[in-house]
């Protein structure tokens, strides 16, 4: 059986200055099944957004393979990739910057229809735009208006409608709810959950917000400094993290009731990605680091129950939840 999306050994470098490179994404592999939601989490600069951008060819990968529906897409020219854009779409973080201020909402939502071969006559396009506005719970009168007339949450609905216009199979959501206020964020998260159920969408949900990831994602991939450190079932990983970084990340999430376990708080900040530490990239901040960790880079290996982690000294697997999450909130 082949997955909808298969990423293997993905590498993306950026040139920062004369001959200095940052490896934003370093040898990352994962896959997404049809209709599945994979969340990509990590702190800023860990490379999670770069992966999303590589998938939609906003960036060209430097090494590795990306297969979509069994077909290799990373080597396609921009022209050859265009037909695939219909099937892979993206929702952006910034609801203000992602809509061209000079276009009407109808023109914005219709853009994929026009360019990706759905071109029927004007009436068919308009009918589809109305359908999409209904889908994201915006009034049909919105079609005639311009982006500045809408609030952040409404704009994000417009962005989602645009992404769904061409009926994609995979939706890359890059921090799609991060810029929104709490009360509006809830609306958009629920909308995405509904759409996913209704349309059978697969999603790569890029986020730093573990609480939202927990509600939306089937599986989670945790990144640190360009590397995948742990990947597996959402419940498993969040309840029983086996990589010390995942554990620290979870411990740092502000909770509505009381103080999280202080012992798990991570010290320091991620190092300069242009000069990643030797060995395990996390060893400088790891509470459990041992000499081996500075010498040898751990591989991503099976860590039980279909999950994988990259650590020489995995946290022990536990039967019950390690942190009593259900009682926390």
């Amino acid at each position, binding site marked *: 059986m082949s997955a909808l999306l298969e990423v293997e050994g993905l590498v993306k470098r950026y040139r920062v200055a004369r001959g200095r490179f940052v490896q934003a994404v370093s040898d990352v592999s994962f896959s997404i099944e049809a209709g599945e939601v994979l969340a990509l989490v990590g702190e800023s600069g860990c490379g999670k957004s770069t992966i999303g951008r590589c998938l939609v060819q906003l960036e060209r990968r430097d090494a590795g393979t990306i297969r979509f529906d069994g077909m290799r897409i990373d080597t396609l020219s921009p022209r050859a990739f265009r037909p695939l854009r219909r099937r892979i779409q993206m929702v952006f973080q910034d609801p203000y910057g992602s809509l*061209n201020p000079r276009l009407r909402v109808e023109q914005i939502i219709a*853009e994929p229809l026009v*360019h990706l071969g759905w071109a029927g006559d004007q009436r068919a396009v308009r009918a589809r735009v109305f359908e999409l506005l209904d889908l994201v719970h915006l009034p049909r009168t919105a079609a005639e208006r311009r982006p500045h007339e809408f609030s952040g949450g409404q704009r994000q609905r417009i962005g989602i409608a645009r992404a769904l216009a061409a009926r994609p199979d995979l939706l890359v959501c890059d921090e799609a709810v991060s810029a929104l206020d709490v009360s509006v964020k809830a609306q958009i998260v629920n909308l995405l959950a509904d759409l996913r159920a209704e349309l059978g969408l697969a999603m790569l949900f890029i986020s730093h917000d573990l609480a939202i990831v927990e509600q939306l994602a089937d599986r989670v991939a945790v990144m640190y400094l360009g590397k995948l450190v742990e990947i597996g079932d959402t419940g498993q990983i969040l309840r029983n993290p086996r990589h010390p970084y995942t554990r620290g990340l979870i411990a740092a999430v502000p909770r509505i009731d009381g103080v999280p376990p202080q012992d798990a708080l991570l010290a320091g900040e991620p190092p300069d990605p242009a000069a990643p530490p030797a060995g395990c990239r996390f060893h400088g901040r790891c509470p459990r680091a041992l000499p081996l960790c500075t010498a040898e880079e751990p591989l991503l290996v099976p860590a039980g129950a279909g999950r994988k982690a990259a650590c020489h000294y995995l946290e022990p697997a536990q039967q019950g939840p390690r942190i009593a999450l259900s009682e926390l909130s």
Partner: protein
Amino acid sequence: MSRRGAVPLALGLAILLAMAFLAVAAPLLGGDRDPGLILPAERALGPSFARPFGTDLLGRDLFTRVLYGARVSLLVGLGVALAATAAGTIIGMIAGYVRGLDGVIMRLIDGLMSIPPVLLAVTLMAVMRGSLWNVIAAITLAELPRVARLARASVQTVRGQIFVQAAIVSGAPTTTILLRHILPNIAASLFVQASFIGASAIMLEAVLSFIGAGIPPTIPSWGNIMAEGRSLWQVKPHILAFPALFLCVTVLGVNLVGDALRDRFDPRGA
């Protein structure tokens, strides 16, 4: 916001309309006088009722000549503004969007920009025969790098915006991205720039003619009239003063319009 810029804008437009009217109606307002008509008996007369601006060293009527001079200035201003903006925008858009060409184009533009516009135009005019079209061409080339740089910078700013990336993801081809997403978003600043280029071109033409490297002396242009009055500036200042004043007011009009438009598009103002 609209109120603050309204007065200068109206003033600038009024000046330009008046100048355009004078230029078009020059044959009527100048009476039956030919701007080139030489009357040796009436040399270097001061302003009078019959000759409101006086006459020059050859006895030509300055009022008539100044009116005809407006034609040259407005034509040069408009011609250069259009040509430099069009060519500069195309070059800037190519440099700003096609990564491979950026380095080469920008080095050349930087090189061109290192030669001060006056000098560049003078140099060009030294090789070309003085004619209105050559003047326009020389000034256009001198102003081109400014437009190209602005266009490139604007393209890069807009190109980095997320809605352009969203358009790429939506499958929009390069032409659509350039024409539908980028051009409309940089048009305002290019338009403002065009007005300043126009003002600068009018000034440059006068400089070229003033130093004798512009329009041939047979055509009355403000720079030419001033050049003729140069030798007698202490005793017959009126020959210099009238064309200089017209030049000043016209450039002021263009600048007022440009400033008002810029304030409207970008209230910070630079």
